[in-house]
């Protein structure tokens, strides 16, 4: 699942130009940026958030992403991707149908029916805390008790959440949504919340995949969803120190676009960056695709400001590293909305790179591919991104081959000419592919590229072209849309991730995939599932592994339950094989039951005591983590 191609990358040339311009602006606070005046617009035109305050105007109510973008089958029974936003938009994908039929035993005749639209009348009625409501009105903060607004903030993107939207209704949703526009607004809201004993749940981009946004069913207090989307200004850019101070509600696409206008970027690109927010990243300890150059969120933040029931937590300076006891940032990062609201973050920025180059390597099998990635990590020469897909994902690439000749000509087609000459001897049912992205100045990129390809060659890897690489990265972000198509045809699925030491990568991948297949069989799933993985990040001491898992649920009476049991089993298997509970999705409520074993009793006690001190009345009552 990848960033919207339209935004950060295609804007590159423009960014480069802007950088030249911004070079003339001298360091210090950028003009037009105000520090204290809450309502004043920060930067000019481009500062308007891409995602509207009324999310329903742009986003699906029952699926992933924009209303205008989705996979459907046209009258000829061919799959196509609608809309204009993405490179794949408007294209017909003739192979997708057969892939779905073959992989899942799905059939076009067997369609499920989502409800046609959000059934607002089914929404649980809003509880009202009169005192809180009056006070919110009094301080003039924008709010809504509209059912649609509330439902849009009642969920993230876990399978069962989307399933519930399509076929039923949540038992509990926020009772009221508030939109603060700056740090001070948040301070006031948190005060009022404590005063009136309501439950406060911060809402960023709503891309959570850990049940983090789900409202506890038995919460009796009024639940207030604090939507940060109207706090999305870049407050200042400090070119001397290469930092920027930004409000937490900004989405990834807006952040990169706006920084790009000054010739900068954060380089933080989680696959959800079109919608996920800076505050959400901090709250979940997010990880971006290009972390090899820019670092993960914990490497990127320099300062965090968070409003808690006990007051504001912040540091007194922005020193790049401190020895001042345990880093309080690390209580905040990963706190998943249980301690307070992140309002402003100082984050590192980098000049937009001069040159980007994609690449790809084909390996005879997954084992060789992993060995290569390990060697790349050993030599600490990983490109901005390096991802290794297993054979099933490689095959899947073929399914998304558009009709028209373009960069999307399938992997296999693209490889055909290689097959004849180079790839003889590679088993198409074994081979796997790594996609690469290099960034930097041109000369260094080319040098770097050579180094990586030389290593790959030692492991039997053959360079398979830039196009294949670029296509790989483009396809990842539309995959999120694919789940909605699957759900129309009895196919449900999800992805999940882990991090694991190098020596266990292969064992873990094999065992988890096999466990999924087994569990499906044992639970009466009628068709073999799709159970596939890829290595998405490399570290000195290990890697991040991402699994995709989907199956045809025809014949099952409670598919979501079956799905959850299998995901549970898969997670057990991950843990048994030395994998972590999560590399970047977080714990939320979905993985809570394992946290104790993951961090020990004492560890959990430490977290609990922080929570008890900071938020004794459980105002931030989303019940994540603990």
């Amino acid at each position, binding site marked *: 699942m990848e960033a919207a191609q339209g935004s950060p990358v295609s804007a590159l040339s423009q960014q480069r130009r802007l950088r030249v311009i911004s070079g003339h602006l001298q360091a210090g606070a950028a003009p037009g940026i105000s520090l204290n005046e809450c309502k004043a617009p920060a930067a000019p035109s481009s500062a308007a958030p891409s995602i509207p305050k009324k999310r329903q105007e742009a986003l699906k109510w029952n699926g992933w992403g924009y209303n205008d973008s989705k996979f459907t089958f046209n009258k000829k029974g061919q799959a196509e991707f609608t809309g204009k936003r993405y490179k794949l938009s408007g294209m017909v994908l003739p192979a997708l149908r057969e892939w779905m039929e073959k992989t899942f035993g799905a059939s076009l005749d067997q369609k499920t029916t989502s409800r046609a639209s959000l059934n607002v009348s089914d929404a649980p009625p809003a509880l009202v805390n009169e005192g809180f409501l009056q006070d919110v009105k009094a301080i003039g903060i924008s709010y809504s008790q509209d059912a649609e607004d509330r439902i849009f903030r009642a969920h993230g993107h876990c399978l069962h959440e989307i399933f519930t939207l399509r076929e039923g209704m949540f038992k509990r949703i926020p009772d009221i949504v508030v939109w603060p526009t700056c740090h001070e607004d948040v301070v006031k809201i948190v005060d009022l919340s404590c005063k009136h004993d309501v439950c406060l749940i911060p809402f960023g981009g709503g891309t959570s995949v850990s049940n983090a946004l789900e409202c506890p069913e038995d919460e009796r207090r009024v639940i207030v969803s604090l939507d940060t989307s109207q706090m999305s200004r870049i407050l200042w850019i400090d070119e001397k120190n290469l930092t920027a101070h930004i409000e937490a509600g900004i989405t990834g696409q807006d952040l990169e676009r706006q920084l790009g206008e000054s010739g900068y970027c954060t380089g933080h690109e989680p696959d959800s960056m079109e919608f996920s927010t800076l505050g959400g990243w901090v709250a979940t300890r997010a990880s971006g695709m290009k972390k090899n150059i820019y670092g993960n969120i914990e490497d990127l933040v320099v300062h965090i400001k968070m409003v808690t029931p006990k007051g504001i937590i912040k540091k007194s300076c922005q020193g790049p590293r401190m020895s001042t006891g345990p880093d309080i940032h690390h209580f905040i990062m990963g706190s998943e909305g249980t301690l307070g609201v992140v309002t402003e973050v100082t984050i590192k920025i980098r000049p937009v790179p001069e040159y980007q180059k994609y690449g790809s390597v084909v390996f005879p099998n997954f084992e060789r591919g992993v060995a290569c990635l390990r060697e790349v990590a050993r030599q600490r020469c990983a490109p901005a991104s390096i991802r290794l897909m297993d054979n099933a994902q490689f095959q899947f690439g073929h399914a998304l081959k558009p009709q028209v000749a373009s960069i999307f000509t399938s992997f296999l087609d693209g490889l055909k000419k290689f097959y004849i000459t180079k790839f003889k001897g590679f088993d198409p049912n074994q081979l796997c592919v790594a996609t690469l992205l290099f960034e930097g100045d041109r000369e260094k990129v080319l040098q770097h590229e050579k180094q990586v390809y030389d290593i790959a060659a030692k492991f039997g890897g053959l360079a398979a072209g830039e196009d294949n690489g670029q296509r790989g990265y483009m396809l990842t972000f539309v995959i999120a849309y694919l789940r909605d198509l699957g759900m129309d045809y009895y196919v449900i699925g999800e992805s999940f991730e882990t991090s694991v030491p190098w020596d266990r990568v292969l064992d873990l991948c*094999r065992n988890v995939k096999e466990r999924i297949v087994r569990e499906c069989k044992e639970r009466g799933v009628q068709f073999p599932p799709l159970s596939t993985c890829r290595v998405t990040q490399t570290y000195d001491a290990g890697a991040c592994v991402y699994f995709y898992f989907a199956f045809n649920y025809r014949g099952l009476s409670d598919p979501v339950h079956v799905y959850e049991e299998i995901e549970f089993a898969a997670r057990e298997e991950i843990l048994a094989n030395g994998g972590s509970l999560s590399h970047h999705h977080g714990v939320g409520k979905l993985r809570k039951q394992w946290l104790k074993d993951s961090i020990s009793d004492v560890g959990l006690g430490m977290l609990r005591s922080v929570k008890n001190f900071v938020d004794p009345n459980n105002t931030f009552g989303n019940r994540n983590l603990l």
Partner: protein
Amino acid sequence: MAASMGSVYSQKEFRSKKREVFEDILEERRQSSDLRYAMKCYTPVIYRNLTPCTPSGLKTSVLQSLELQYVIRQISSESGESCESIQEQAAEILDEMGHNLRMGAIRLFAMSLSKIFKRLFQKVCVNEEGIQRLTQAIQEHPVVLLPSHRSYIDFLMMSYVLYSYDLALPVIAAGMDFMGMKIVGELLRMSGAFYMRRSFRGNQLYWAVFAEYVKTLIRNGYAPVEFFVEGQRSRTCKTLSPKFGLLNIAMEPFFKGEVFDTYIVPISINYERVLEESLYAYELLGVPKPKESTSGLIKARRILNENFGSIHIYFGQPISLRSLASGIINRTQYNLKPRHLPQRPPEDVQSFVRDVAYQVELNQIANMVLSPGVLVATILLQNLPGMDFNVLVEKTLWLKDLIEAFGGFLEWPDNLSASRVVRSSIDLHSNIFTLVDGHVTLLEHKHTGLLTEEIVFEQAVSLLMCAFYRNQMINVCVRPALVVLACEMVQSSIKEEIFRSFSFLRSVFSKEFIFFPGSEDKDFDEGCFMLTKCDIIHTTPSEIMITDKGTIAAFFLSKMFQPFLEGYKLAYTYLVGEVTNAFTEKQYISGVRSFISRLIVSGTSKCYEALSSDMQKNILSSFVQLGVLKRMKSVSEATFCLEKKMVKETAEKLGLQMFTEKLPSARL
């Protein structure tokens, strides 16, 4: 008679009880050319995720493994020897051990074994369903084959059977004494067997090479790995208490996530007559067995003219290690250490391995096919020196029903009259039984005059051989029999007291018979259930009484176990009465043996079985476990001494009238 039996049977014998179909794999061998059989197209099914590799590739990957390299470096730093030289030693060990699969050898092997087996055995019966299950299992996950071990024939037979069914030949962890047998040893090795030294305790390098070799085989699913949980051939035909070392190693790849699962396949191999029967008897009596050597085997050619009856091989249900361990073993405990570092198995793993080992042996026991000769031997032992043939037939039929009710897996030819069946059994065992004038006797036991040590020894040989066959079913009877014994010993019908006595007997005999660790309650219930089912006892919630109808069966069961009870009592008497200083195992065995043989010569005892070193070794470790003896480690050999205080204390605490009463040495 034996051959005629073969022709009476159809090729497929239908087992009504367990609905198992056995196939005689020799049947076809007798009808077509062995050469053609040996040259047949052999394309065994293999593990689906097998990474193909050659035996030498296998060796290299063992030698280069992090595990072994770590140990080599460690030994080097401790001993000052260079890594290279240790590495060389490791390579030598590996050569000595390493199997070397060669098709030519397999074919030669297949042909010669066909010839030999056809001469020795009437039939080799294999349960077909078991083979089908195994075929499936081999493709799914790495497989560990765990046959019972009664004879050297076991692993020849295993390889032969797997070859016959087009299955991958197993790699066998076999004892080293085979290395003495040049030709056979080499042949065996080329057909898959690999060797370990019988005793390599303390040899860190050997152990590391060995362990790594087994694990490598399992990790890449190269071939089924085969070894014996019993550790060695049982000389008494009773299942030996399991050994855990190899099983531990074999399971490690699963615990550490290196394989998704491992199948464990218990296999019961039963011989109607065991090749080594007399050798074993001599060995148990302290006459050293001849060292295995090829010439010895060739001398044993006369054996080839004898008839050893049928063999039944039952391939049990493959057990998924993953499902066994699920919810019991927390595999995350391996997460915090590099997996290649040698690590003592954590406690939960140790007890898990122990439980699995016992489970495997209990499965082997349950699926062991018993022949009528087993019943005959058991009955005869209770009627020494001999009995009327017709009574024997009658009794045999009676016992057959009892054993079947106890779950014994009897192979009884329904199409023959009972007397024919008993007759052929006696004929088959004509080296221990004779039938003269309608009277059956155990050889050497018809002695009337004065006994001498020599005569006692000869009698002991035939008696131990006879007991050998009884022992094949002793574990089937042990639970009900101990309940009966307990009833007799407490002289009361109070269930609780009987249970206490049962538990005590069970722990005294824990080395003698196979009990699942910690399952006293279940064993007791099971014993009671079987007895109730057969109308031998009557139970109320608080009482157990032997029924009138059941007295005969109860007496029979009790008598069946008398030799054990008496043997333990004699040993106790010896220890308390005759021993003052600390002693070694060796000293003990020769001491107790001459003590008992004196008692037999003097007519005070008839407990020939107590002359067996196997029983005496069991007694030692059982007494150590009970706290009656203390085991002290010294430099060379462990010594034992009596815990005089403990004797009375534990005895009284546990209510052991059997040990506390003053035993008059004359009447036991």
